């Protein structure tokens, strides 16, 4: 029996048999090991496990981190399969996405970047703007991500009709309500780690400033920092804009206008910046 070290849970402690019990010859057991009945199917291509089909049943995920890696692998021109697993606990890090390669290794987060570098396909931003790119990625991952998860999980209309179904729709009721509620609380705690109180206007005004900065930085170029090929910065920012713009709109009259207006606030903020919309449309048409 092998002990596989698990990233999240560590290694089980080794228990040594005391010497006085050697006479029991326990080391001879198991006497016969049968071959396993079921082996998971071998992968033919490197597979990325992500959150389920995207808005309107598209190939791109509805989760920002998953879509970033999906589109970046596309930028790199790598052949890969996508499985809509929707199960973060299947991953060694506890989060999706994770990449299962044909030789059997599993990678997540930074390790996927390292794997792509080893394959020689990394899309690196050349020249003097690589450090600025890091700053803008950090801007998107703090301000824009906060507004996105606020809009998805804390706007009542979005939460009840779109997000909880997307993330937990495959789980039978009533467990899916409980899981969605717990995730909502986790989102609140996550937002509170960065700010002292949650005020809707402040979170959206931070997003406004961030979108303005991104729009100014993009200007009229196709990709960020005037690059001729899309890079990791483009992947990150595209994923946020695509998910915000693709979010379902609610048109039935049973819901109050105020709620509908609140639910679509973030989308309207993004639509104000034509160059960001054009940037997202361009990448979507070319790579998705």
């Amino acid at each position, binding site marked *: 029996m092998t002990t596989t070290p698990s990233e999240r849970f560590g290694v089980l402690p080794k228990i040594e048999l005391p010497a006085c019990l050697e006479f029991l010859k326990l080391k001879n057991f198991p006497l016969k090991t049968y071959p396993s009945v079921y082996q998971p199917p071998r992968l033919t291509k490197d597979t990325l496990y992500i959150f389920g089909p995207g808005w309107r049943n598209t190939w791109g995920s509805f989760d920002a981190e998953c879509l970033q890696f999906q589109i970046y692998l596309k930028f790199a021109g790598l052949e890969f399969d996508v499985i809509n697993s929707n199960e973060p606990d299947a991953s060694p890090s506890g989060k999706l996405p994770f990449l299962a390669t044909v030789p059997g290794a599993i990678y997540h987060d930074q390790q996927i970047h390292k794997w792509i570098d080893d394959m020689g396909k990394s899309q690196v931003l050349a020249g003097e703007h690589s450090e600025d790119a890091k700053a803008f990625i950090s801007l998107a991952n703090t301000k824009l991500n906060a507004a996105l998860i606020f809009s998805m999980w804390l706007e009542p209309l979005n939460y009840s009709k779109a997000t909880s179904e997307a993330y937990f729709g495959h789980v039978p009721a009533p467990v899916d309500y409980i899981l969605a509620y717990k995730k909502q609380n986790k989102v609140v*705690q996550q937002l509170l780690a960065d700010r*002292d109180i949650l005020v809707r206007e402040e979170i959206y005004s931070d997003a406004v400033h961030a979108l303005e900065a991104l729009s100014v930085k993009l200007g009229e170029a196709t990709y960020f920092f005037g690059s001729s090929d899309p890079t990791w910065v483009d992947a990150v920012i595209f994923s946020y804009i695509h998910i915000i713009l693709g979010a379902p709109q609610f048109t039935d009259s049973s819901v109050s206008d105020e709620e509908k207006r609140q639910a679509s606030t973030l989308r309207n903020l993004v639509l104000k910046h034509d160059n960001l919309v054009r940037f997202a449309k361009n990448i979507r048409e070319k790579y998705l």
Partner: protein
Amino acid sequence: MSSVQLYVWSPALDAPSIDPKCIVAEAYLRMLNKPYTVVHSNDPQTSPTGELPLLKDGAVWIAGLDRIIAHLTKKGINGNSNLNPEQKADSLAYNSLVQEKLYDIMLFTWYADMTNFVKSIRPIYGQILSFPSRYLVPIQLKKNAQARLAKYNIEIIGDDVELPQNEVEEMKELQRTGWHHMYQLARDTYGTLDKKLGDQKYMFGDEPSTLDCVVFGYLALHLYPNLAHRRLQHILKQEYPRLAQYCDRFKDTYFAEDQTLSSPAADIPSTWSTLLSNPRSFFSVVKDEFKPEDLSQNKEKKKSDEEIDFERKRVWSIAGGVTFLFAYVIFNGIVSVELED
């Protein structure tokens, strides 16, 4: 200009304040030559949102660094006034890089490294906090640090463990905390800032801007504290001397003299007072728009219908409860009332 008071955490560890946002607030006011007095209130509970720095401008109270900067910008005092739109975009991006990554690295050095926490950080907080905060606040700070460091998969264990006694145990302890990822992140971030600074005097040329205040605020707490394990100081001084010199230059220019201290004002709001003034909003998770509390106008507040209804129901329910109490007491003879004819 009426008096402007800034409530901050007091100086500690050789830095202008123990909290980076307080240093940024002070640096911002000093850079823009706005006269102000300082109150070393080490109690975040005095702030309506529970976070220092807190600014009192005349009769208005503003809590939180971002709100203070927004308020000053509205009054016409802007640190970014001589930047073009692209530089403003850069400023916002680098701002968020610094406030996220440098803060996380600082929290790692302070709270995940047990030797630092027990030997340097905990005693400092014990000194500057008063009773009973000195037993309660460090636990809150540690929980906050844990929440922020969770995304790097760093575990912060309790602080009643034995400190490592020798080199081997220290190495094991460091391995457990995942130090080398964090210090790699530190080097990457320092490299980014170093490249942005280049050989310029400040981040955007010869004039300081908001970004300089922010970078100084967070780097000061990497560079100046003499902790038990002062690896960040070492990295900055040896490998990124330009950044260390930049911090020293900024400190000499703007923090040469101490600001006048003043005592806390009488009408200071606190989380308790916000609870009393707006009870329902206090308990909901997402707050309504947060305006700076303007206490000069709170005498003649018009009550909305809902509030009148709420108060009427409150009066009736309290009256009903008290009546029921007396009826029960008298009916069961616990207290007997004798009527004299």
